[in-house]
């Protein structure tokens, strides 16, 4: 095999100067924007501090009222914590922002308890069965295709032996999907599949990353 030839041919690939200039120009623009943002943020913070300082002057609460307010707040917060703790964690939508602050997409976060996952080896593939527990609710109700977006496989020692980019999405049937992942690089042994992101697709809509943490053990 002509290994030197490969090196030589690849090293002959050069970036066009115009492209180089464009990239640097965009970075300079980002730098200026960032400086302006920092300047504005500093001014806003200084204004807020000034206003707060102004509001504080001349106001002295009687000690008893302060103690009463603190007790009421503690009791109130305690009640809220108990109420919140009794429920399960629920997923939520979050904006994806670009370096300049523009919103460029949406993700669905904290979906761990809304999807159950099982994995089993079939031939040279790992078949991941996912059940959408809230298939009738948003965002699952609007999704047509479903796939595993980010995953990795750890061996018995916990070392990552494979990580995935899976682009396959499959149709959802009765809130259930089966996605096959390739296992072509693994030797036999005990492994753990860790999924950190699924993806939901719908016609004419941007893909929705669905984030959480799912673990499945399997033997090869």
């Amino acid at each position, binding site marked *: *095999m002509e290994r030197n030839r490969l090196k030589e041919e690849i090293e002959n*690939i050069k970036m066009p100067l115009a*492209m180089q200039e464009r*990239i640097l120009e965009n*970075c300079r623009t980002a730098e200026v924007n960032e400086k302006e943002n920092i300047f504005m943020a*500093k001014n806003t913070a200084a204004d807020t501090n000034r206003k707060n300082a102004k509001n504080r002057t001349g106001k002295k609460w009687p000690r008893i009222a302060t103690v009463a307010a603190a007790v009421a707040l503690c009791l109130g917060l305690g009640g809220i914590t108990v109420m919140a703790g009794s429920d399960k964690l629920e997923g939520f939508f979050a904006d994806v922002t670009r370096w300049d602050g523009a919103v460029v997409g949406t993700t669905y976060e904290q979906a761990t308890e809304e999807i159950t996952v099982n994995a089993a080896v079939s031939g040279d593939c790992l078949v991941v069965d996912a059940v959408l527990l809230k298939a009738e609710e948003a965002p699952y109700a609007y999704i047509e295709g479903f796939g595993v977006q980010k995953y990795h496989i750890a061996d018995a020692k916990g070392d*990552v032996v494979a990580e995935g980019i899976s682009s396959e999405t499959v149709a959802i049937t009765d809130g259930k999907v089966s996605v096959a992942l390739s296992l072509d*690089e693994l030797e036999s042994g005990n492994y753990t599949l860790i999924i950190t992101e699924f993806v939901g697709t719908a016609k004419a809509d941007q893909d929705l990353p669905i984030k959480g943490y799912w673990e499945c053990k399997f033997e090869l």
Partner: protein
Amino acid sequence: MKEKLARPAGDLEQVMDAYGNMLFRLCIVMLGNSADAEDALQETMFKYYRKAPAFTDEEHKKAWLLTVVGNQCKDMLRFRAKHPLAEDTDIYEYKSGDNENSGILDALMALPEKFRLVLILYYVEEYPVKDIARMVGKTPSAVKMRLQKGRKLLEEVYRKEYL
């Protein structure tokens, strides 16, 4: 609030001069089209400007840039798998020197991206296996396996098409 900008003035230009071509080569070979390569490189430079750590030496900086650009290309490929382009760019448009087409670049481009990345890092950038493993987030044995399979596939494609 982050009040201090991460990089001194003129640093981006120096990085672009020193490593621009190397990063572009990796992007164009991984992605197969110049628009995506430019986007990946742009994102890498933004990340360098905003998030780069304090480097111990130039080698550390180079390895960091290669890791970031490799991950950026993977993200881009994931996006392209779902939103394919009509056609790819001819990589030979960006080749200088003698323009004789030996076919080895075409053979390389025909391989899956996971093989292209390790082959370039090993044969072109001449990194040892353990460094490549760190850059691509794999174990050294997985990298060795990829190199072995990649070499075999490259040889097969090259022999079949060009010899």
